[in-house]
């Protein structure tokens, strides 16, 4: 019983470890396409990519291949986590930006500000949210 609980907990943690980077939307959704192509053709034929595809996964998940089930949990978790971070970064990091970048509000230089300071200087929540936006790595690639 305890063993099963631990196993489940491990599984849940593996889906979205708190420290993990989120994937780019392109990487996330192409992992889904690769792992679930056959299951989509079989159980979700004609279902558009969008909210209805997730509903179809939720309804038919148990019948789908283990690989697809595992991948789609991780993929949807990553996508919604990145989207939430990109939506909320201004609010989450407003105090950090005011403290570190000599500006009273999160303006257009938000990304430059957060990239320029040492990650250790950011509050834990702001640092994590900024990582989740994917903008740190995006900026590094440019």
């Amino acid at each position, binding site marked *: 019983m305890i063993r099963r609980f631990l196993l489940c907990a491990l599984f849940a943690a593996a889906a979205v470890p708190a420290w993990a980077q989120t994937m780019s939307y392109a990487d996330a959704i192409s992992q889904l396409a690769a792992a679930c192509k056959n299951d989509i053709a079989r159980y979700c034929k004609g279902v558009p*990519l969008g909210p209805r595809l997730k509903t179809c996964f939720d309804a038919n998940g148990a019948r789908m291949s283990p690989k697809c089930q595992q991948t789609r949990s991780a993929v949807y978790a990553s996508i919604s986590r990145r*989207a939430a971070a990109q*939506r909320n970064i201004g609010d989450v990091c407003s105090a950090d930006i005011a403290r570190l970048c000599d500006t009273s509000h999160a303006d257009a230089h938000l990304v430059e500000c957060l990239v320029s300071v040492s990650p250790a200087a950011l509050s834990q929540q702001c640092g994590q949210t900024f990582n989740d936006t994917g903008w740190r790595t995006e900026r590094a690639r440019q």
Partner: protein
Amino acid sequence: MRSDIQRHRLAYGKGTAMKSHRCHAVAAVVLLGAVTAALGQQQINSSQMATSLAGVSNTRLSLTGAQMRQAVLDNIHNYPGTLPPRPLTFPQMENMAQFVVEVDFDFNSAVIRPSSYRTIGSIADALHNPILLGYGFLVIGHTDSVGGRQYNVGLSQRRAEAIRDALIDPFGVNPGVLEAVGMGEEQLRDPAHPTSGVNRRVQLVNVGKKFCFGRSGEQFVCP
């Protein structure tokens, strides 16, 4: 729709007044390169897409989606025929930052194939790039000439809407910055080969700044 716009906070939340000279600094040369890459059947990645969309002139597109849809219907009405006798053009759009990608749909359907999921994800990555914050975009669908012209307008409209819908959910793009338009076969890319696959495509166009941000962080439709 309006309430959606209000509810959907843009990424920077508070006080984002993007400096316009920064937005317009990206060279149009890159745009040209990216479009050429798409023409060469090679899909562009999200960074190239974002750069293409950011290489923008200082203007806002003086053409609405509704006007474009009307122009398509007028073109079919005024110039009937199996194939469009003359292509529909929008000179205003030529200077706008844009790119073209190919998206695979099921036959005669607006369902995006898994083989093109990555392309939609890349568009989402590009539209979330901080350099494009607050800008509005047209998602324009084009078909080849197989099928009636009127039918193709509806098909391409549904396909453009399918892409818009996926960008909004699950990828979290602000619904207020996206408008879907179907052009049918009225703008064939290769009129000499009207049934060729190169005609089936999706065009993403930056229509200019849509949302502005006040000093205290409030978001409003730019005047």
